[in-house]
């Protein structure tokens, strides 16, 4: 269970995220949407303990400031966008890195049998078994994204933070990813907090929605309740609803 109270964070003296509060219970998910620059990624970084923040963040009732970083990382994993520079590790080795926290203890951190099993399971879950020994530099953008997902899953966290992970995936994989995570969040005490561009996809992940603009939460609640044309207009500055209405009309007319 994750709870944020009046969290403000940013870079240096500049506050990007202002006074965000929400709570995500076990097996519940949350989608965060909003225009670029509204602070979604910054917020996720604070939750993952990569950025300092003001306010309170509690995991299962314990404030993160009293937890060690490794403890936090055991509970929260973030699946980021792919970086531009990376070395040619194999898919298998990359996913194995997700097991880092669980491999402590051994002097040279040799993976145990359990580690190896988890890694294979995650690789299979993202359908990359065929290329598990291939170098990640040789993968397509979509495949690389799936490697990152497998690595995040291998970390066996309780809460997964998604930072716009669908950028490189085609429609099929986007939907598959969200479906997979939806199922995942139903197990144990898992939750997923996803920052997504696509509102439809977001709503597929969860009914719980938080809409951000300029670092503040302008709306929070069930998607069906809060998503209105007016809200979208206010947040995105264009007639998004009108755009959808138009598309819907053409859909009804069979795209002629």
């Amino acid at each position, binding site marked *: 269970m994750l709870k944020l109270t009046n969290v403000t964070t940013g870079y240096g003296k500049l506050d990007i995220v202002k006074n965000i509060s929400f709570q995500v219970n076990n097996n519940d998910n949350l989608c965060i949407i909003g225009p670029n620059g509204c602070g979604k990624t910054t917020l996720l*970084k604070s939750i*993952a*303990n*990569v950025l300092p923040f003001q306010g309170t963040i509690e995991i299962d009732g314990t404030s993160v400031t009293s937890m060690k*970083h*490794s403890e936090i*990382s*055991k509970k*929260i*994993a*973030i699946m*980021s966008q792919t*970086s531009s*520079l*990376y*070395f*040619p*590790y194999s898919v298998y*080795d990359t996913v194995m*890195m*997700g097991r*880092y*926290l669980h*491999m402590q203890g051994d*002097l*040279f*951190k040799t993976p145990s049998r359990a580690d190896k099993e988890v890694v294979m399971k995650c690789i299979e879950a993202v359908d990359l078994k065929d290329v598990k020994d291939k170098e990640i530099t040789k993968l397509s953008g979509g495949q690389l994204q799936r490697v990152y997902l497998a*690595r995040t899953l291998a*970390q066996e966290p309780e809460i997964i933070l998604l930072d716009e992970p669908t950028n490189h995936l085609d429609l099929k994989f986007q939907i598959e990813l969200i479906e997979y995570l939806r199922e995942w969040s139903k197990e144990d005490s898992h939750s997923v907090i996803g920052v997504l561009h696509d509102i439809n996809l977001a709503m597929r992940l969860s009914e719980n929605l938080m809409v951000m603009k300029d670092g503040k939460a302008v709306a929070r609640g069930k998607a069906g309740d809060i998503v209105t044309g007016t809200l979208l207009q206010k947040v995105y500055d264009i007639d998004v609803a009108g755009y959808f209405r138009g598309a819907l009309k053409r859909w009804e007319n069979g795209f002629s």
Partner: protein
Amino acid sequence: MKRKITISIIISILTLLFAVALGSVYVSPMDILRIIGSKLFHSPLPETVSDTNISIIWNLRLPRSLVAFVIGGMISVSGVIMQSVLKNPLASSYTLGVSSGASLGAGFVILFGFSLPLMGGFSLPVMGFVFGLGTMLLGISFAGRLDKGFENNTIILTGMVISLFVNAIVTLMSAVKREQMQRLIYWQMGSFSAQDWKNLFILLPIAAVGILLVFHYHRELDMLTFGEEQAKTMGVNTKLVKWILLIAAAALTGSAISFVGVIGFVDLVAPHVVRKIFGSSHRYVIPMSALLGGVFMVICDLVSRTVITNQEIPVGAVTALIGAPFFAYIFFSKRERG
């Protein structure tokens, strides 16, 4: 992979044998084996083997080659750390202050005759080490202060600035004390001459501890290459790990420089070559860099003392002369294939 490792080990042993077999003076291979055998296993040595040759093989060539091997390993591993941690192929503890700092320390001893109490002949290495390490630590802690996030670019920039500043001081000192400047320059060019068993026994534990410590963090090194944030989210205590690794790199090169002077280039080139052959996983890159870096250094030392009979040319020049084309070959040939 196993095959590549075995080949590397075999190459290492062969190179060492070669290094002991060749030199300004010809000693027959049979004699060489007899000498080594007699020293190690107390096997009998025929009268025909002269004392001079025994001394040359056992007291000059063998310790010298072994020291070159260890130093090469230390410097290469240091290079691996700097490149992986700072994600910059030009980052080296030399450019970040260790070599200029060590030159400063050495400058005090060579130019001004400064001598540490109780240290006597050890003043030079100790001063070199202390100042070398100290300068780089100064640079890193400056970076840590300037940038709470301890970003790589900050580290590199502050390191270079401090390094250049210290270099300027050394230049000033040399200008004031020109008579001894030549000696300082020679020291800076590096040499394995006069390396004996004593030095080897001091270097070995330093190298072992340093390299094992680095190996302990091989996974973190892998993860850091994905970027600090990602490594952090996977649970790595990036700031602590970076500090430890950078200090280890500085300590390794600092110790190396303090004994043999500034021999650069190996730490830049060896990691790249090793990665091309063994891949990026630090589980292999670290030990193989130590091995192949050692081999490279032994070869360079061999060249520096045999290419002109009876004379020695500075090994620092040889590493660059041999290293550059070799590096280009490996880099570009693998590129076409890969």
